[in-house]
């Protein structure tokens, strides 16, 4: 039996770790995350996964509401363009994401807080690599305080 590699980073030194909410599409990315899991590929435990039917389901409300609710980062993942289970859901979503990303940047909110990626059901390795990358980006930005209310 292989020994589980448990990252004890958090318990050893109290370094701040971001919390990232990840919206994964049911057909590709969620299965990709599953594959990463069953293949025992390590990726940061910072993400909390929400399964959605399609990346086209993701409204800008979801992303901004997550930031308001205090998540340090948002990760959205769907099928590669052309591979969408619903033919074009991710292509329509891509236009929305482009506008949202540019607007956030324009408002002065660090664009790295919200990340978008494609990962198919066969790409467990890619999923892990990109989650690592997204976590690194958010970690460098620090805690999300812009949407905090002052009481």
């Amino acid at each position: 039996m292989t020994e589980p590699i448990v990252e004890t980073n958090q318990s050893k030194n109290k370094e701040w770790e971001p919390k990232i909410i990840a919206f994964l599409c049911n057909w590709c990315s969620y299965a990709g995350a599953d594959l990463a899991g069953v293949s025992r590929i390590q990726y940061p435990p910072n993400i909390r996964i929400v399964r959605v039917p399609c990346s086209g389901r993701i409204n800008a409300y979801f992303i901004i509401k997550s930031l308001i609710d205090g998540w340090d980062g948002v990760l959205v993942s769907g099928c590669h363009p052309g591979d969408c289970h619903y033919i074009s859901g991710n292509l329509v979503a891509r236009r929305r994401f482009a506008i949202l990303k540019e607007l956030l940047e324009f408002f002065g909110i660090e664009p790295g807080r919200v990340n978008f990626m494609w990962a198919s059901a066969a790409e467990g390795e890619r999923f892990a690599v990109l989650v690592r990358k997204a976590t690194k980006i958010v970690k460098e930005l620090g805690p999300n305080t812009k949407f905090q209310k002052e009481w």
Partner: protein
Amino acid sequence: MIMGLETENKEIENNLREIARGLLKEKKVDVIIGYEKGSLPLLSQPIIIDSEENVDKLIWNNLCYVNLAKYLVPRIPRFIDPEKGNLTVGVISKGCVGRALIHLASENKINLDEIKIIGIPCNGVVNRQRIEMEIGEKEILEVSVSDNNVIVKGKDFKKDFPFDEYMNELCKGCKIRKPPLISKYPDLCVGECEEYSNIADDFTDIEEFESKTPKEKWEFITDALSVCTRCYACREACPMCYCNLCFVDQNKPIWFGKTTDLPDIIVFHLIRAMHMAGRCVACGACSLVCPMGIDLNLINRKLEKIVKERFNFTSGLDPDTKPPMVDFKMEDAQEFMLEED
């Protein structure tokens, strides 16, 4: 004596009345919506005309900032006959009103057979609030225009406001001053209209803002928006905001807070901007009605820039093109997506 703004463009006004009279006489339209003198000197207000004798009430000057397309989506009851159904409406249109109507047609909100665009050339509207702010507490009794000056008179004062300076910011760089002419619908437009093809836009002001650091941008935006009282006047004036239930009024689920705390204000404007992408026709009505004088044009211009650069789209020029946000292309740019190194 209270007087409205007297313009040197008597010619435009006369032409406009002539066209309106002709259309009503030949029964080409049932009603006409246009502008009339407001109840106060610096104001204009919409008027609905259904008979020839009232045509002389129509005016056209630099204070006519209301986007009349707002009255067609949804149709106000005045434009629906209980027996005949939808009436044919003639709309006095400057460039942005015409664009709004045509964009709404591309969203299937307006049937182009039921409207008539009466085009007029526009040279920009006055930013009334800035003038009022400068005058302060004193009462304005008379307003007139001469040699590109807006002259405001009161009981014991008289002040000149250069039109170029007190014009609405958005109007300064406007490229579509007359309503667009659609060759597919030859009966749609009367009056002064123009055919537009490729519109070269100058976004240097936006690029300048974009080059700031995130901290500077955030400070500027929060500073500008922090006075917002969430009265939603911008939403009410916008011809594109026609949802039955706006996202801010929704309470099942409550997406976003309804307070005037900074995060809630920012989110309201962020989402409002999201909804305007590829739809804003740059009429500037939202900024002109803002009681707090917030300039939303910066955000709207940014949207225009994104849509132009990414999707090569200018809203309100063709009723048969799909709006960019409901359309897609396989080869859309996706440089913002995360990729493996």
